[in-house]
């Protein structure tokens, strides 16, 4: 579900540039400071080795193919539902990410107020989400939404910064990572004894005898209350959830129906026509590996 950012040498930190352009309410310097704080949130994950370096301001806009990773405001009036987005330039030979740009849509009103500001989107919260993509994470599906009459979705709640839909204007909750975010970052950039002290649950989601592709599988720890998710990423319905606290977990499977399916998976054929279900066995995440596989049966809607 992710790829590591390339560093230019052993121990080097990937460099990023801030665009030297502000928007009403946010100067370029304030933008840089808030984004720096958002990077620091990911760098502070104790079980992951993530470090970045601010390289300076640039007039280059995001999304230029210039080998510079640029974060900045950009006018994208056509993307009237998109707060921000992250793109990658990938080395076709090595697969390494050589450039990653993040744009923040200046058609929206932004805030850098310490406690948020009514009517404006919190820049640091959105930056924390986009930097999650910057380091290689995809979207999390731990969240609940409801459809509005106009076809858009309203977020009822989310359990991950990497949920694809914002909690809304004036909300600063996404400045703080959730267990699903921490597990994802730590799985991509494990530090210290992360892999030896956490566990993995694997399994398969089945509808009858067929595997279910694209099911959202969540491991819930009744000990800690953490929710950590994954997806069944193959036609046979197999899934893998890493970064779990050792111990028993409840396995819950649901269809990807709380946001557009392509927010999570780009491959066609995602099955959303089944009912939410729990696995009847407590699945144990062992310390430093994977336990027995869970075979989760679901029923058609």
């Amino acid at each position: 579900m992710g790829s590591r950012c390339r560093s230019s040498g052993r121990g080097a930190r990937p460099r990023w540039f801030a665009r030297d352009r502000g928007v009403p309410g946010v100067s370029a310097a304030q933008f840089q400071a808030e984004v720096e704080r958002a990077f620091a949130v990911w760098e502070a994950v104790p079980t992951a080795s993530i470090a970045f370096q601010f390289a300076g301001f640039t007039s280059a806009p995001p999304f230029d193919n210039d080998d510079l990773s640029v974060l900045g405001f950009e006018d994208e009036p056509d993307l009237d539902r998109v707060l921000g987005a992250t793109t990658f330039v990938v080395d076709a030979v090595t697969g390494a990410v050589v450039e990653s740009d993040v744009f923040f849509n200046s058609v929206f009103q932004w805030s850098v107020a310490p406690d948020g500001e009514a009517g404006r989107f919190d820049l640091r919260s959105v930056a924390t989400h986009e930097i999650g993509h910057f380091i290689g994470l995809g979207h999390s599906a731990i969240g609940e939404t409801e459809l509005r009459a106009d076809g858009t979705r309203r977020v009822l709640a989310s359990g991950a910064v990497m949920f694809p839909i914002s909690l809304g204007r004036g909300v600063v909750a996404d400045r703080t990572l959730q267990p699903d975010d921490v597990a994802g970052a730590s799985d991509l950039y494990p530090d210290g004894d992360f892999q030896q002290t956490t566990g993995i649950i694997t399994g398969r989601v089945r509808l009858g005898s067929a595997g279910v592709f694209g099911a959202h599988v969540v491991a819930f720890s009744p000990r800690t209350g953490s929710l950590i998710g994954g997806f069944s990423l193959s036609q046979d319905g197999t899934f893998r959830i890493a970064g779990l606290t050792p111990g028993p977990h409840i396995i819950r499977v649901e269809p990807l129906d709380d946001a557009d399916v392509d927010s999570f998976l780009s491959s066609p054929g995602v099955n959303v026509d089944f009912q939410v279900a729990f696995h009847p066995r407590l699945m144990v995440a062992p310390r430093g590996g994977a336990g027995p596989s869970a075979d989760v049966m679901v029923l058609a809607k």
Partner: protein
Amino acid sequence: MTLLVTGRGHAETRSGLCAALLASTMLVAGTIPAAGQAVSEPTGRFEVSAGVGLLGGAAFGGQPANERTASGATYRLFDSSTELASSAGFEARVGVVVTRRITLEARAALGQPELRTSVSGDVEGAPAITSVERLDQYIFDGGMTFRVDEWRVFGLVPFASAGAGYLRQLHEGQTLVDEGHLFYAGGGVTRGLFARGNGLVRGVGLRADIRMNVVSGGVSFDDDSRVQGAFSGSVFVAF
């Protein structure tokens, strides 16, 4: 003891244990002689016993699966509540008779309790369910018993016991171990069935124990100690 090997046949194992426990209890009742017909208590230097027992469960409480809302409130995805179920098991004990009243003992107890998490109130309507796993549980403890012969009634000799031990619980699939320790205090009665003053085997009797275990660690959702009752019945041989 081989009944507790994991795999199929758990139901049969439980039935067998219950039957054995019942038989043991009935045996005690059936061999109580009339008052004044007391059988001499078996006495020797060592005692060995084996039997079956029941270890009480423990509630680990509830844990909601919460998400965050825009207002900062929590949004409950579902509720969960977890307990360690009571379980039957086998035990074996060896003792060294120090004085007429005092015996030092070591005991090994095996059981397979279930860890059960009940899930309910799913916000998307998933049916409530209880997810379970079966643990392999080993208790190794040591302590002292103190006989109170003066309080003998109908041939039953009461005793008090206390000690400490080690708890080892293997999760299903045997890929994760939780360890802990326990202290116990309790008591029970013994009833001699046969006794003699010489020979290798000095006597045979029945024994019933009741205990309160104060358990720390093991499969637990917090750092608090918990109290678990236990009952067992066994046959002992004195040498």
